[in-house]
């Protein structure tokens, strides 16, 4: 079972590397990969496609900032965040807003594995842990 998982992961990585064009995920290539898998089949297709999906999702998350906010966020602010992240990570980053009342006030930006916390809820949590 373990070796099947390893083989599936290895194959998924190969498919993933084929889906990248100029350092970004290409929608055409992804469609091509899915078409190939559907036509030709593969051993453990569910395992392969799940691993492939995880790799693509991780890669896409690196180029997309989710801005959680409590209070108003306008397009100019989102554009400024996207520009700042693009500069910081050296890749094209887009930003979308996601309201979250639990933050009380402020922002929390998710991009890939990184989280930039600038909310009152986050600061109170930090305060609570430091007491």
């Amino acid at each position, binding site marked *: 079972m*373990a070796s099947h998982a390893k083989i599936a992961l290895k194959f998924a*990585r190969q498919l993933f590397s084929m889906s990248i064009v100029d350092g970004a995920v290409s929608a055409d290539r992804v469609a091509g990969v899915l078409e190939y898998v559907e036509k030709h089949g593969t051993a453990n297709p569910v395992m392969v496609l799940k691993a492939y999906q*995880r*790799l693509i999702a*991780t890669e896409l998350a690196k180029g997309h900032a989710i801005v959680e906010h409590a209070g108003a966020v306008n397009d100019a602010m989102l554009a400024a965040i996207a520009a700042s992240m693009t500069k910081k990570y050296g890749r094209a980053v887009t930003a979308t807003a996601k309201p979250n009342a639990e933050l009380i006030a402020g922002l929390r930006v998710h991009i*890939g*594995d*990184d*989280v*930039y*916390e*600038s909310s*009152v809820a*986050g*600061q109170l949590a*930090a*305060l609570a842990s430091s007491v």
Partner: protein
Amino acid sequence: MSTVLEQIEQQIAKLSSKTVKKNTGNIRAVADGVAKIDGLSDVMYNEMVQFPGGAIGIALNLEEDEVGCVILGDIALLKEGDEVTTTGKLLSVPVGKALLGRTVDALGNPVDGKGPIGSTETYPVEKIAPGIIVRKSVSQPLFTGIMAIDSMIPIGRGQRELIIGDRGTGKTTITIDTIINQAKINKVGLASGDKGFRPVYSIYVAIGQKNSNIVRTISALEKAGALEFTIIVAAPAADNPANQYIAPYSGAAMGEWFMDNGMDALIVYDDLSKHAVAYRQISLILKRPSGREAYPGDVFYLHSRLLERAARLDGKGSLTALPIIETLAGDVSAYIPTNVISITDGQIFLETDLFNQGIRPAVSVGLSVSRVGSSAQIKATKQVGGKLKGELAQFRELAAFAQFGSDLDAKTKAQLERGGRIVELFKQPAFSPLPIELQVTVLFAMQKGFFEPIDIKKVVEAASSLKSFFTTRKDDLLTEIRTKAALDKDLEAKLQAACEEWKASYAA
């Protein structure tokens, strides 16, 4: 009241200008104390990670698209999808004198119900061992209080001496005796007001042991008045393997604090066989490739990096390590025993046969060795016990041959008798370590033939009488031996006279 509010406002103002960056991941799978995590792309090897609910983990497997972490703490509340955060810190434990007399878990949290520990300093659990330049050769003795060890297999401050043997051969007892002896020496030394006296603080790390055994050990130490100089680090069998894996490193960190601050410490790892088993379990769950006896490839490094942290530092203190290894059917050629034998500076081998014959401590003189040798002995012990190991080895050889024939020449018979008496003299009950000055006295009496007229079966009784004679009536002489640490002509004459006095009183 307004001051408190102002303080809170200031704190909020300070925090409100900060944007904190965190690196996060999500639990993909959690089982048997190990979590597989997606994300955590910035995590470092051995970094502490924060799980929800207060549990912490250590990143041990850094793979291309997942991280394997061992979890320290309660794993019952963790589930797939939970967010995990890096901390940027290495796992640290509290250190310092505030820990003395306390029982703590692998993370340094008190488990003895005596309240919080007032320690202000922490040390990282994993630390690179001291290098070559800062080390000093081992030359100061660390008395175990066990005559067979102190006279034939001496241990020095900063040494690593393995205690190896089958189950139930008295391995733990030797280490407890040693801890009790340090406490006794500390009390005498501190009471004497000698400014040059260096007390030895002890750390006992219990790995994978039954809770009842740990309680018994604590009681023995408490009864002997040794707990006040001892820290107990407990990772019992009921703890998860991650805690058992971390516990000896935590203990080493606590010992290093004493060493770094110019003090001497002794650490007992009881035992490293169970430690290796806990690490094997973690490694197998992390799907690391397994090798001999299913142990992972880095099991040697597991113990070498731990034991290398014991040292005597130039201008600072020392950390002496007494690791314990349990063998199966006396097999010292198994994987873990051979590894630890090669890492340490000698071993004390305990034999089941000797133990069952009533020879306790059941030290096998032929297989036991201290690579530091006589440089870790005081001159007085060298003078009275320098040739003992050879004599005893010769006795064992002769005794084996003597079984085949009854006609023995007088010289062989005398050698056998003498050997038999030495064996009897080395018998010592548990938890009653002998001060070095009394050891010297008993060995002196033996070398001068005071036990020769006594029947072998009564040697133990005679030795006990000699000890109580010196303790009650010749205390000044014992103090002189302790302070001089060598037998000059004058002291030898006094000892001879005192032994004659005892002989007369014992015969009567």
